[in-house]
C-alpha cells in the first residue's frame, strides 16, 4: 500500500483491522522515494471474501492512496532477521557453517555470541531458526516481510 505520510495514517489502518476483526500477521512501513508517501506491506489472512472486503475497507480510508494485492500476481517477498545466538565451544563452528549454508552474515562477534543477519523469504528465516541447535537462540528480531510485484509495472501514483 502507498499511504499518505501523515500522523495517524498507521493508526487508521491498524484500527480498521482491530475494529473489523481482521488479522494483521505482519506490517512493515517506511518512507519511499516520494517524501509524501509511505509504503506499507501488510500480511493478512482470510478467505477470498474476507480479503476482498479488507481491500475495499482499506481503499475507503482517505489516507490510503494505492493498494495492490501481491498475492494476485508473481511477486517477490523478502524479510530480514537479526538473530543473536549463544556461540561457545563447538557450537561456534556449527553456527558458522549454518550461516554459510543459508548465505547469512555474521555481523557481530563476542566470546560467547554471534549476531547473524539473514534476508530472504519468510520460510527461509523459519528454516534457519529451525536449524539452530536447541537452546542456542538468545534473541530473534524479524522485520516482517516486504514485497514487490515482478515485472516492469510498479505501484506508483
Amino acid at each position, binding site marked *: 500500500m502507498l499511504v*499518505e505520510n501523515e*500522523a*495517524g495514517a498507521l*493508526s*487508521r489502518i491498524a*484500527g480498521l483491522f482491530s*475494529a473489523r476483526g481482521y488479522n494483521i500477521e505482519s506490517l512493515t512501513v517506511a518512507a519511499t522515494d516520494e517524501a509524501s508517501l509511505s509504503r506499507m506491506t501488510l500480511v493478512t489472512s482470510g478467505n477470498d*471474501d474476507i480479503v*476482498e*472486503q479488507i481491500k*475495499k*475497507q482499506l*481503499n*475507503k*480510508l*482517505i*489516507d*490510503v*492512496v*494505492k493498494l495492490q494485492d501481491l498475492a494476485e500476481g508473481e511477486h517477490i517477498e523478502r524479510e530480514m532477521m537479526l538473530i543473536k545466538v549463544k556461540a561457545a565451544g563447538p557450537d561456534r563452528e556449527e553456527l558458522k557453517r549454518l550461516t554459510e549454508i543459508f548465505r547469512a552474515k555474521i555481523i557481530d562477534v563476542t566470546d560467547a555470541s554471534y549476531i547473524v543477519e539473514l534476508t530472504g523469504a519468510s520460510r527461509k528465516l523459519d528454516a534457519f531458526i529451525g536449524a539452530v541447535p536447541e537452546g542456542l537462540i538468545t534473541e530473534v528480531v524479524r522485520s516482517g516481510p516486504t514485497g514487490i510485484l515482478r515485472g516492469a509495472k510498479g505501484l506508483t*501514483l
Partner: protein
Amino acid sequence: MQSHLADGPDPNETAMAAERPLLSGAEIAIQALIDEGVEYVFGYPGGAVLHIYDALFQRGDAIKHVLVRHEQGATHAADGYARATGKCGVCLVTSGPGATNAVTGIATAHLDSIPLVVITGQVPTPVIGSDAFQEVDTVGITRPCVKHNFLVKRLEDLAETIRKAFYIAQSGRPGPVVVDIPKDVTDPNVKIPYVYPRDLNIRSYNPAKRGHLGQIRKAVEAMLDAKRPIFYTGGGAVLDDAAAPLTELVRALGFPITSTLMGLGAYPMTDKQFLGMLGMHGTYEANMAMHETDCLIAIGARFDDRVTGKIEHFCPHAEIIHVDVDPSSISKNVKVQVPIVGPVGSVVTDMLSILRESGGRPDQTALAAWWEQIDAWRGIDCMRYDRSSPMIKPQFAVETLYKVTNGDLYLTSDVGQHQMFAAQFYPFDKPRRWINSGGLGTMGFGLPAAMGVQLGHPDAQVACISGEASILMCIQEMATCKQYSLPIKVVLLNNGYMGMVRQWQEFFYESRYAHSYVDALPDFVALAQSFGHVGMRVEQPDQLESAMREAFAMKDRFVFLDVIVDPSENVYPMICAGKGHHEMELPPTMSERELA
C-alpha cells in the same frame, strides 16, 4: 449527495477572497464556514474554542449559532438538519468533555451516513500529550466513528482542511468529519492572508460519479427476465435524492418495492406498489416477497442484520443486483451477482434510459401472478391490533398522528417500540420526512434532531415521537427549543417501560423484566411547563384526536403531548433472531388475545 467540488465557491466570493485579507485562525474558521454557505452552527462554548466563539460573535448574524444544552444535542441537531435539508450539518464544541459528549452523535451520523462537519477545540499544540486540562485525543477517540478526521497543527493548513472536511463529508457515501483545532492555532493575534481554496486535490479520494454502463445494462436485462422481482431500497436512495427517478423506474416496471427503515419515503408509502418496510418488524408481504423473489434490486441499502434476518435464509432464490456508491457495502454481508458502484440517483436514471431505449417490458403474465401472490400475503393483515381496546394503543396513536397532520409532517423519532410503530403506521410519501437513528439506534436522538429539522424548515410541521425512556436522555434540549422558539410537537408514547427491552424480555427471557420498568417518571406536563412550554396529557382513546388537533393548532408553541398507552403492547410482526424472512411471528389473533 451532490459534491460542492465541481462548482467550487461562488466566483464573487473567490474574487473577494483574492484580496486575501489577514485573518487569525479563529476568524478563518468562521470565514470558512461562511464561504461554505453554512447557515447554522450547533454548539456549546468552552475554553479551547473561546477564540473561535469570539470571532463568531464579531461576525454578528453572518452565521446563526444555536446554543444547545449538551454537546450530544448539538450533533443530533446538526444531524437532523442535514437529514431534513440535504445540506451538511455543522457543530462547534470544545475540547475534552465537549468532544466526548459529541461522540454519540458523531457515531449516530456515521452509521447512517449523514454529512456533518464537527469542529472541536483542542488544547494548545505545545501541551498536547501532557494530560492538560480538558485534553483528550479527540482524533483518536473519534477515528472509528467518522468518515475522516483531522488535527490541524498549522494555521496555514486550516482553511484548506475545513474545505476538505466539507467535501469529504458530503461527497461519495456521506459521513461525519471531525476537525480538531488546537487553541494556539486560533490565536487572535497571529494573522495570515486568507483565501478559501477553490480547487481541492485529494489524490486518494475519488468517489464514483457514475455507475458502469455495462453493469447497468446487465441489471436491466435481469429485471426484464424476472418473474418475481422486488425493489429493496435503503437510506442511500434518500441521501442521494434519488426519489424521483426511483419512483419513475419502479412505476415503469410495475414491480413491488419494499424499503428499509432508513429508506422510508424515497418511494411513496401510500402507493399500491409499496409493500411496507421489510426486516425484523417489516410487513409479512414484504418479507415473504423477499423470500420468494427471483430478482432482488437493492438500491442504496446495505443488507443490515435487522433487514436480512438469518443470512443463510436470505433471498434463497434471487439473483441480486446491488447499487451503492460505497464499494465496500457490496458483497459485504450478502454475495451479489450484479454489483454496480455509483451514486444511486445517477444509476437509477441510467437504468431508466436503458430500459426505455431497449423498449423491453417485463413478463406481464408472470408479474400478474406475482402480484396475485403478494395480494394473498397482504390479506394476512400482519399489522392488525386490538382497535376496541379501552387503552390507547400505540399503533392507534400513530394512525391518529397521521390523520391529524394529513401525512404532511417531518417526524423525528427516538429508539424503541415507538420508532417501529411510527415506521409501520405513518406512511411517508416524501423523502427526508422520516428522521431516525437506524444504524446506531441512539436513544435521545429525536428531540435534538427535531430542532435541526425545524430550523431547516421553519414553516413546516415538525414532531418528535418518543418514549418516556428515550426522551429523558436529551430532555435538557427543551430549553434550547424555548430559547429559539421552536414549535416542535413531542408525541410521547408513554408506557412506563423501555418497551422494546420489555418486549424482548417477555419473548426471550420468560417475562423477567430486568430493569426495563421506568420507575419514578417525572410529570411530563409539569416538566414541559417548567421549561416554558405547553404540556398536555391524554389517557383516553376518544380524546386523543382532539388533543392532537389542539396541540398542532398551536403553530408557534412547543407542545409536549404525554400519551399514556397500553404498556403491554408488542411490535408485530417480528422476525426473531436466527430466523429467515419466511418465519415471521404474526400478531396474536383476537381469540389468542382473549385466551391470554
